[in-house]
Each structure stands twice: as structure tokens, then as C-alpha cells.
């Protein structure tokens, strides 16, 4: 279903009808020439893939953005406080708001990093909150908080840059908020937590799916793009090696590696892309890592359930943004509900990411359903279930020039520096298949730009 009564979208379409859509070709050529792509491995072969995009943007009205901005700021603020707490005094557990067993049995909780203080008490520097707009009641619903290593910001950023060149009409006629200051905000946030030294973006390397983004952000934010091998811990500090043998002290690292790969001394000993002993320098407070180590506990699919409670607990405020109605198999009452309503629920394995481990109960055969029931009973902590949200479609324009609706979500990015900056743009992902609800790029979804409109003078 497409959201009706949207004057901004009507205005967009009015303009779209007057312009030559064949110019999309020009956009494609641009994208190709700029090598705006993502990498993937298929059948053991490395493939550079163009990120499939659609020129019709999601349009967000000024009042809607103001609401989302407030809601996201509140959410990020609470998640950050939760992480500070859960790796510190653990008040929220002692006060019984979240069952401590729930946190302690999670693989994402890293007790060996408890009591590590982080620069400026910020742990959630970069976040990507995934939302959908519910076609029932028109409300925005948060599906997932991504506060470990969220990616995707470069795609709408690059698409915007190109769309402005190819289709200036929209930017002339519609009051679209600019998005190009994202890298500058990132730079400011890095400077803010920097413990002395240069800023670095740490990439897993050329073969990572988001390597383009790493390069792009480094270039635009003035940070140095480095591989693990380029960094070294000397004494108790981190340095960037340079080709002529000199070393530059590093004060902040926007790392695009998972915790597991970050340090072979501390985590996975076989990681070749990490920096040995970087975690010790971090524990000693000699370098800021963005995001902090151990954030996984806060974007755990199970902890998600408790985010509204966190907001109330830490901030004494009502949550602005709603969660999808969620049931935790961990609680007996919820578990019974799940087991009795398998057909109407989406069941998620909390250990999986990227749209994997998501099962629609309605699509299971009887025996599959029974098998899943057994798994839930055996390991209740591992599963959550959510009611299926009928979220809005957005139109896509295909090569033949026809409009067709696709399910679409919205990832909104924010940067926590001196304050929490919610980027007035976003990555709108859509399902390639008209019947699908899964929009993840790793599962073949495409993306759109997100235009946030300004109040018109």
C-alpha cells in the first residue's frame, strides 16, 4: 500500500512528469564512472556490484523529520546511557528493569570491557536506526538499532550528489534539505572524542562490501584511511605508520571492523585485519574507538524489547518512537503467546544479522513450524517474535517507465559528538521482489535517496 494524501510526493511527481526520464541513463553512467558500488562474494568469486538504486526518493515532510529527529535523539541518548550503565554500575539490572540474566547470557555482552571509561562518555558515536512507516495508523516504528558498525550512508550521499547534477529541477522547485555536511559532522565528532593525535578510519580492506564508503568518508572527513597493518601500538599508544618510517599518534579511530576482528591479542587470534593490543590502548584511555567495544549488547534483537523501558528509566520521558509489538520467548507468558500464534508472527533469531534468521511464521510448513517451536522451547533466550507490520510501499520506476510499489524501510543515521546530530537524509531500502518485506542490501534489496524537506519560507 502506498501512503495516500502526500502533497509533497504529488509535487515531486508533477515535476517528474515534465522531465526526460532518459536522463537516468546519465545518472547511471556517472555512478559507474565514480565506481559507487559495493562488493560481494558469490561462489567464492569477488564481484563489484552496482548498488541498485531507484530515482524516486522517499520524501519526508518537515514536521515528520522534526518528529523523527527528536525520537532518534532520545533513543540514541538512552542507548548510550544503557551502555554506560551496563558496562558500569549496572543500575538498570539491579533495579530489575531488564533481567540481568538477559544481558549476561548474551554473547554480545563483553564483561572483560566492564569499567572501561570512554572519552566524553560517548559510546554510540555513529548509529543507523531502521524504521518503517506503518500503514495502519501512519506511525513510524523502529525495527532495529544498529550501533555497532552501521553502513550505508555513502549511498544516499553519492546519489544525492549525482541527482543534483542530473535532475536540478527538483532542487530548484522543492525545498530539499542539504545532506553534504555528514562528513564534516563525522570529522567534528572524531575531533570531539580524540585523545590526542590524528583521526583514522580503519577499514578491513578492499574486499569489504563497504570499502567504497570507507574511502569516501576518509576522503571527505579528512581522516586517514588505514588497514590494520598501517596501525601499530607502541608503548601504550596507537600510531599510524607512514611510508617514510615516521609515525603519527592516532587519537580517534572510526573503525569499520567488528569487535571480533579488532585485535588478535584480545579477540579472534586469527584476525589478520586487526591491530594487536589496540584494545589495551583503548582500555588505558589512550585512543577513542568509534563505536566503542561491546556495543552489540544494546542492539541485540532481544534488548530492543527494553529500549522503551530504558528511555523511561534513564530519562524519565515517554518514548517518542514506538517499537514493533515484540514478544520475548524468554518470558513464559510471551513464549506461550509465540507458540500459539506462530502463523501470524515474524520470528527472529537474535544472533543473526542482515535479514538472516528472520522467519515469517505464515510461510512455514507444519513440520518446519514444529521444529522452530522446539528450538524456541530449548533456547528461549535466542528468539523474539514480532507482529507483522504492514508498512508502506514506495513507488519505484522501472526501466520501462512504469511505477510499481515496493516495501521500503528507512535507515536514519546520526552522529553523537558534542550533541546528537540526526542527518536530514537517510538510506531508504526497498525489496526487489514485490511480495517481499526484506530490504537488506545483502539480500538483494535496492536503495533510494531520502529527501527531507525544509519549512517553506
Amino acid at each position, binding site marked *: 500500500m502506498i501512503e495516500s494524501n502526500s502533497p509533497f510526493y504529488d509535487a515531486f511527481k508533477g515535476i517528474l512528469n515534465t522531465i526526460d526520464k532518459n536522463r537516468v541513463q546519465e545518472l547511471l553512467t556517472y555512478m559507474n564512472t565514480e565506481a559507487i558500488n559495493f562488493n560481494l562474494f558469490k561462489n567464492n568469486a569477488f564481484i563489484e556490484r552496482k548498488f541498485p538504486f531507484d530515482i524516486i526518493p522517499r520524501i519526508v515532510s518537515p514536521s515528520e523529520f522534526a518528529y523523527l529527529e527528536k525520537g532518534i535523539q532520545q533513543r540514541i541518548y538512552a542507548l548510550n546511557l544503557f551502555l554506560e550503565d551496563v558496562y558500569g554500575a549496572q543500575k538498570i539490572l539491579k533495579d530489575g528493569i531488564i533481567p540481568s540474566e538477559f544481558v*549476561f547470557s548474551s554473547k554480545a555482552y563483553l564483561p572483560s570491557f566492564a569499567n*572501561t571509561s570512554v572519552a566524553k562518555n560517548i559510546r554510540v558515536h555513529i548509529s543507523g536506526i531502521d524504521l518503517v512507516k506503518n500503514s495502519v495508523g501512519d506511525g513510524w516504528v523502529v525495527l532495529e538499532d544498529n550501533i555497532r558498525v552501521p553502513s550505508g550512508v555513502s549511498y544516499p550521499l553519492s546519489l544525492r550528489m549525482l541527482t543534483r547534477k542530473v535532475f536540478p529541477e527538483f532542487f530548484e522547485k522543492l525545498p530539499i534539505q542539504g545532506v553534504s555536511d555528514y562528513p564534516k559532522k563525522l570529522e567534528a565528532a572524531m575531533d570531539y572524542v580524540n585523545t590526542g593525535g590524528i583521526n583514522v578510519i580503519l577499514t578491513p580492506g578492499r574486499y569489504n562490501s563497504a570499502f567504497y564508503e570507507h574511502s569516501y568518508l576518509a576522503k571527505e572527513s579528512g581522516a586517514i584511511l588505514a588497514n590494520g597493518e598501517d596501525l601499530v601500538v607502541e608503548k601504550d599508544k596507537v600510531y599510524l605508520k607512514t611510508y617514510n618510517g615516521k609515525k603519527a599518534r592516532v587519537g580517534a579511530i572510526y573503525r569499520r571492523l567488528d569487535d571480533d576482528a579488532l585485535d588478535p*591479542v*584480545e579477540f579472534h587470534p586469527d584476525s589478520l585485519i586487526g591491530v594487536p593490543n589496540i584494545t589495551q590502548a583503548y582500555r588505558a584511555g589512550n585512543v577513542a574507538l568509534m563505536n566503542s567495544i561491546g556495543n552489540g549488547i544494546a542492539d541485540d534483537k532481544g534488548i530492543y524489547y527494553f529500549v522503551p523501558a530504558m528511555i523511561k528509566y534513564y530519562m524519565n520521558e515517554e518514548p517518542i518512537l514506538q517499537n514493533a509489538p515484540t514478544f520475548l520467548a524468554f518470558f513464559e507468558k510471551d513464549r506461550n503467546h509465540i507458540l500459539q500464534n506462530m502463523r501470524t508472527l515474524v520470528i527472529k533469531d537474535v544472533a543473526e544479522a542482515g535479514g538472516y534468521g528472520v522467519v515469517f511464521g505464515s510461510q512455514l510448513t507444519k513440520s518446519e513450524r514444529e521444529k522452530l517451536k522446539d528450538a524456541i522451547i530449548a533456547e528461549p533466550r535466542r528468539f523474539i517474535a514480532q507482529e507483522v507490520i504492514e508498512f508502506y510501499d514506495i513507488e519505484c520506476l522501472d526501466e520501462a517507465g512504469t511505477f510499481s510499489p515496493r516495501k521500503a524501510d528507512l535507515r536514519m543515521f546520526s552522529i553523537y559528538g558534542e550533541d546528537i546530530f540526526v542527518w536530514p537524509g537517510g538510506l531508504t531500502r526497498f525489496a526487489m521482489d514485490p511480495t517481499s518485506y526484506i530490504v537488506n542490501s545483502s539480500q538483494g534489496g535496492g536503495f533510494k535517496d531520502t529527501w527531507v524537506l525544509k519549512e517553506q519560507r
Partner: protein
Amino acid sequence: MKVNFSYDFTLTFDEPVRNHHFCLRMVPYTNAIQTLLAWKLSLNDGVPYYETRDGFENHLVYGFLGKPHRALKATIEGEIELSPYVYHDKEPVELYLPHSTLAPLCEDVREFSRSLKLPVTDFRKAHFLTQLLYEQFRAIEEPKAKGLETFLLYKEGISQDFSHLLIALLRSNGIPARFVNGFIDGVNKTHTWVEAFMDGDWRGLDPQSGIFIHDEPYIKIAHGRDFSECQIHRGSYIGKRQHILEIMGRIERNEQ
């Protein structure tokens, strides 16, 4: 009781390695029953080291040895005040209830557990299990742990295996348990034991010797949910992986 201690750690490589970043847990823990009064650590060739603490409050010593070397040697000497092994600390005990990777509640542990007739109170259960491990399992000298499944099958393993099995059994009986790395006098390998939380206190259990530790001189270095969180040495280096770890702990009663 005041004791003097010394602890030698030697990691020997078959072939020289280089670019060795290391992180050692070898400075004794400080808590209510163990106060480190004085200590001095030296590494081979005067390699400098730096200190920090992990989330368990384990003392970490880290550094870098770049040039090719066949061994990493470290010696710590010092004086420590020990009290009877009953204490509590600020860590949440619930952290030590869920099963962990090296002390899992696998089918074999479940089955073993079902075959036992356990006494009623936590205290007696812990006592019973500690004794049982001592009587039914054999300690062997090998560099690597067997893992619980093999340990249960052949009924022999190293100190680590004893501790992990006891931890898994305690936890599955609702008793929080943590893994301890440390040393006792004259034992030339890492000694590990278990702390179990009962009646408001942590108590030491040594399943390899079958004892409830009371005022025996056990010096604790580090603890964690299992071995993976309190290894004596972790490192990354260029060279072949083969190495031997030798350890010698000495504890002497300080009569003054």
C-alpha cells in the same frame, strides 16, 4: 598470612618469532582475601611493559617485542597478604550463571549431571562435585586442554578441564561459578581452580586436588567466566604457532 612469592613464565618457540605483541595476566589479583603488598616484574632483555585492567579487574601487562626471539620470559616477585578463602566483591554474581563457550551445558555434561545423585544444599553439592572430580578423573600433563566432551569420555585432562567441568556442573545446579587462574607452591604449570558463590560468599574449590580451599596458599592471578577470559598469555606474532609454556610458582611463608 604474609607470603613471598615468585612466578616465572617462559614461552618458548620452536623457531624464532618477531613482531610479538603480548598481553600477560601474571600480576596477582587484589581483593578482600589477597593484598598485593609489593611486586616487581621483569621481562627478558628489559622489554618495557605497560599496565591496564580488564573488566574483571584482572591486572594486564602488555608490550611489544619486535626483534626475532625464541622465548618470552617474565618473572614476578613480591609479597602478598593472604586471608582465608571466603569473600565477596562488587561483581554481579549473575554474570557467572549462564553457560559459557568453554564450560558449555552440552549433552554430555547434561547426561553426566543426570547420572549423579546430588545432596541438597549448595554447599554440599559443591563439596560433592569437587570430590567426585578428584576421585573419578585423572590429571595428566599436556599442553592443551581436552575440552569437556573428551574429558568426560576418557576421564582425564589438565587442570583447565577439571575447572571447566566443575563450573558447568555448578552452574547447571544454579550455583554461580567462575574460573580462576593462579599458582600454588612448586607447581610448574598454570594451576586453575574454581570460585563458587554460596551463602553470600565466593569460595575456592580445587577439583584437581579435591579440596575446598581455606587457608592453603593459593595465589590468584585472574578470573573470568572461563579460561578464554583469563589466559596468562595472549599474543600475536609473526612466526610458527608452535610454542611451549613453562611456568614455575614459588610461595614461601614470610615469618616476620
